[in-house]
């Protein structure tokens, strides 16, 4: 379930990424949009990897268990 939500989020995020990159390349005049496009691409890759890594570190079964326990105590 969590993986499905992440995949859905990343697909939407990557589509938005593509549209922003496309605008920089397609409509940019001068060097600034190219520099920004490069920085954007690089940063997006890093953030993408960080999101995947942090997702892999989460023990979702434990989280679901903890969440249910946490709210039961309250």
């Amino acid at each position, binding site marked *: 379930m969590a993986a499905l939500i992440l995949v859905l*989020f990343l697909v939407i*995020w990557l589509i*938005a*990424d593509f*549209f*922003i990159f496309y*605008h*920089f390349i397609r*409509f*940019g*005049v*001068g*060097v*600034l*949009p*190219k*520099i*920004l496009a*490069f920085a*954007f691409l690089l*940063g*997006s890759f890093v*953030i*993408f990897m*960080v*999101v995947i890594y*942090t*997702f892999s*570190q*989460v*023990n979702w079964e434990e*989280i679901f268990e*903890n969440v249910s326990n*946490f709210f039961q105590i309250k």
Partner: protein
Amino acid sequence: MFQIFFKSNNSFEGILQEEKTILVLRKHPLFFYLPIFFFFFLILLVFAIIQFFSSSDFFIKFSSLIWFLYAVFCSILWLALFINLMIYSLSVLILTNKRLIQIETKGLFNYERNDLELFRIQDVSIEIRGILASFLNFGDILVQTAGTEVKFYFSSFPNPLKIKEDIFKIKNKFINYSGLNER
């Protein structure tokens, strides 16, 4: 390969034959750095909040989840930052030897473009309003064509007086050069 990051002939979509770009102007750099500042401010603020609660039971139980959510938050902010930077960098005023072109990007797939032939320019006026604009020397430029209405309105451009002078200088140079007279 990396030359595209340093050098450009400033060509753009719809450039005419024998048309050369002379100036490409963007809004004041303040509007470039402001979203960057807010991006880092929000990133650090949320990071500080997470650190502040790092010793609580809740954080210890859900630390991996919190860091994952923080990464997701950063990724959304990253998009928001670059949508702003895209709007900044793609909203330009282009002065060529034939035309004055205003491209105003308002968002994704949302932009407006106005072209004005140099010989149609009748008057250029500038407006500097507010303390910040006076200190940082940015203002609005209004270009008038024949008739009373303001044809072009460029908001928050740096050094508007110099831009005004440049527009007239280039207009006079190229109108005289091409033998065209004002109508």
